[in-house]
């Protein structure tokens, strides 16, 4: 077995990522079949068999397996990306630009970059002729960003064999680097539980020149404003206690105790999101014309609950805060929380590899504040972890669902090397 030329592998990964980012898979509508076509072409060239399954017109999922026919490690990634607000980008979000040592584009971090690490890991295992004691699967799923109905949820019903795995490595936690030096690779065994809510209020339409006091747009604005002032309880669940302590031990923060964490959460939206149920007003829509009082106004709330919170209690509290009988509260999407164990061989291997490859780096457990496809595996009892082995600066993290999303070539090299080594150790004889 020859040694891997990591310079060449990195160059190859950069080229592939740039091409991948040029494929616009904004969801909605998704168009993930274009991404699948791209990935399929690469696997074909390597002589690796794969399967493609269409879940809706223009939307498909891709699966490939190396080694034994069941179990093993699944390298899971999603091919869709969230939409962009183009006017705020300084580069073409679908241009795959390489400049200043960075590859730019929607999906660079979430999660086409990780998808390329997984693809390259998969391909390198084949090229290196690694003898596989355990199976490795590569699964590229659609529709993660809109709730997975045409991705992993569809696969669960229509291609259950694709989910035959003992372990899932997926997005869900990035590594972090502080300007002061400390470096931490995070591993997420659980995540916040989304509860998406649509609010609808009806009023009396009429001519815009006569405000009549029953304007649904105003009812909605007033209720939403109450929601934004709603103070919710801060609470430290066990995985977050471990996280806080590990980050402190790694020299990443000076917050060590529960009390300090609760105080820090008042200042830090990111920590607050992991210590409380959150509510974000994400869309408001009403009106057909500037001089017509609308008959109906709607808004959506992106609520994320702690894994052990009761959604019905939360909804009850939300109704109290909205404090408007006219308001219809409709649940668009509700999930169930689940957690994978941290005392597993996977976590140990991650810890070993990180210690060997990145001097001075530590690992820390984390709770994903977003949601990922991992939840579907966890609910089936399959351990699934968020583990994107890059070391990101805070400003790079802002690109996730934000503007000017990018990943450094240095991180592509690091991610590729760490992921390959972790997977190699888990599956090789």
């Amino acid at each position: 077995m020859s040694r891997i030329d990591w310079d060449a592998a990195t160059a190859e990964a950069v080229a592939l990522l740039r091409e991948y980012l040029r494929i616009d898979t904004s969801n909605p509508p998704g168009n993930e079949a274009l991404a699948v076509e791209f990935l399929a072409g690469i696997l074909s060239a390597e002589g690796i068999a794969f399967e493609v399954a269409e879940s809706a017109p223009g939307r498909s999922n891709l699966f490939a397996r190396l080694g034994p026919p069941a179990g093993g490690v699944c390298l899971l990634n999603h091919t869709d990306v969230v939409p962009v607000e183009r006017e705020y980008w300084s580069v073409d979000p679908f241009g795959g630009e390489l400049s200043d040592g960075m590859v730019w584009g929607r999906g660079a971090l979430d999660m086409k970059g990780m998808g390329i690490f997984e693809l390259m890991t998969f391909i390198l295992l084949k090229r290196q002729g690694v003898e596989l004691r355990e199976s490795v699967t590569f699964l590229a799923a659609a529709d993660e960003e809109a709730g997975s109905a045409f991705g992993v949820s569809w696969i669960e019903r229509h291609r259950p064999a694709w989910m035959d795995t003992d372990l899932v490595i997926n997005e869900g936690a990035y590594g972090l680097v502080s300007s002061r030096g400390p470096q931490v690779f995070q591993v997420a065994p659980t995540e916040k539980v989304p509860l998406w809510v649509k609010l609808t209020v009806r009023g009396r339409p009429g001519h815009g020149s006569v405000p009549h006091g029953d304007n649904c747009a105003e009812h909605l604005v007033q209720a939403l404003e109450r929601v934004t002032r709603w103070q919710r309880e801060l609470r430290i669940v066990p995985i977050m206690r471990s996280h806080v302590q590990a980050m402190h031990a790694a020299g990443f923060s000076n917050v060590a105790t529960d009390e300090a964490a609760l105080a820090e959460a008042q200042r830090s939206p990111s920590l607050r999101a992991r210590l409380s149920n959150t509510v974000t007003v994400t869309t408001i829509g009403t009106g057909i014309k500037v001089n017509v009082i609308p008959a109906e106004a709607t808004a959506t709330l992106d609520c994320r609950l702690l894994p052990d919170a009761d959604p019905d209690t939360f909804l009850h509290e939300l109704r109290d805060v909205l404090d408007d009988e006219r308001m219809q509260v409709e649940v668009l999407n509700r999930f169930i929380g689940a957690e994978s164990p941290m005392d597993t061989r996977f976590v140990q291997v991650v810890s070993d590899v990180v210690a060997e490859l990145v001097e001075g780096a530590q690992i820390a457990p984390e709770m994903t504040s977003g949601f990922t496809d991992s939840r579907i595996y966890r609910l089936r009892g399959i351990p699934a972890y968020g583990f994107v082995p890059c070391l990101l600066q805070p400003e790079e993290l802002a690109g996730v669902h934000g503007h000017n999303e990018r990943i450094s070539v240095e991180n592509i090299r690091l991610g590729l090397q760490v992921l390959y080594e972790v997977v190699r150790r888990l599956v090789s004889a």
Partner: protein
Amino acid sequence: MIDWAAIQREALDIFVRYLQIDTTNPPGNEKPAARFLGSLIEAEGLETEYIETQPNREVLVARLRGDGSKGGLMLCNHTDVVPVEARYWDMPAFEGVVRDGRVYGRGAVDMKGCGVMQLIAFLLLKRQGLPLKRDVVFCAVPDEEAGSAWGMGWLCKHRPDVVDVEFELSEGGMGAARFAGKPARLFSVATNEKLAAGLKLTAVGTPGHGSRPHEDNSAIHLMRALLRLHEWDRGITYTPDTTAYLERLADAGLMPPASDAAAVEAQIRRSPALYAAFVNTLNVTMVNSGIKVNVIPAKSEAMLDCRLLPGQDREAWRQEVIRRVDDDRIEVEFVTRNATGAAPAADWDTELFWTINNVIKESMEDAVVVPSMTVGATDNRFLRGRGIPAYGFIPCLLSPEEAAGFHGNNEFLTVENLNMGCELMYEVVRRFCC
């Protein structure tokens, strides 16, 4: 003699067919409406002119010649209608459904019904062959509901010869079957109107993932601003016109006397439609924020329908709103950049006003006729700007339910009102022009 029963059947038939022409603006497509009305005029052997302002959008003009001893009277109506929220209608909005003595359809009161009354008056003058002192100009224009740039605004700019008249009648005032909760026969002749000064508020924040809320969410900024505007009491302002209006109402026993200022103000505040004539209004009509349920929106926008009292300056109003919002993350700009300044009020004490007054009083002894201010904008502002007394006058007695049809759901006009409107309109025009 006029066979009014036959005329009523004719008017109803025309009205139903007119309502079946979908002239929702945007986009308008008013040409078929202009051609429909024009064909009825041509059938009487009269000439018509169609003036295209945009593809598929036309002005219809027809003229009955007077002897030139007096200036012309224009009967002006708009052919476009506002959009429909079909799911809130109990019947199709473009079929002209006649049910229980009511004619339902978008435009029934705003303003195809009045257009039919003007048309019937015009056709009857021709059929009766009466000698006219004044020219009578029938003019049906597009685009009133979207600012008139391709309707009356265009006509005044490009065809001033058409609007060279001494008086004009259009929408803006009408009869009300109830006033301040009491039965009444109150006819408003609109001599003045408010100035549209719609504003767009744009809030900019920081985008991000919906799972990690932060305080710089543009939707939150916008909501707080809208709330501050909602809680803003701008008081009550009396103008010379509205003062005269209140005096005439008080004389008719429909308002407390001016000496009891508190009672007057209380009654004004009880009625949204009345209140709107005494305040710069501000109405949130559109809000648009966000692209996806899990993305914090970087930009949120709201449109406010604002209407200013006569004499108020648009820019001063914008500055006032900016001060009230008090948040420099929020941009406040006009919805329409090229809006006109305040229009001068037309003089109400004219031969036309008194003709209307007399015709109505002779028809209904207990009727009250008042000069008034329209709270919405009409095409009359263009003509008033040219010094022409342009009056808003729909000669019907609308119930509150009927009046709610303006830009509302299940818009209708009763057959009774259509008949009354045709007769009164004819009589006003005949008496004024013969």
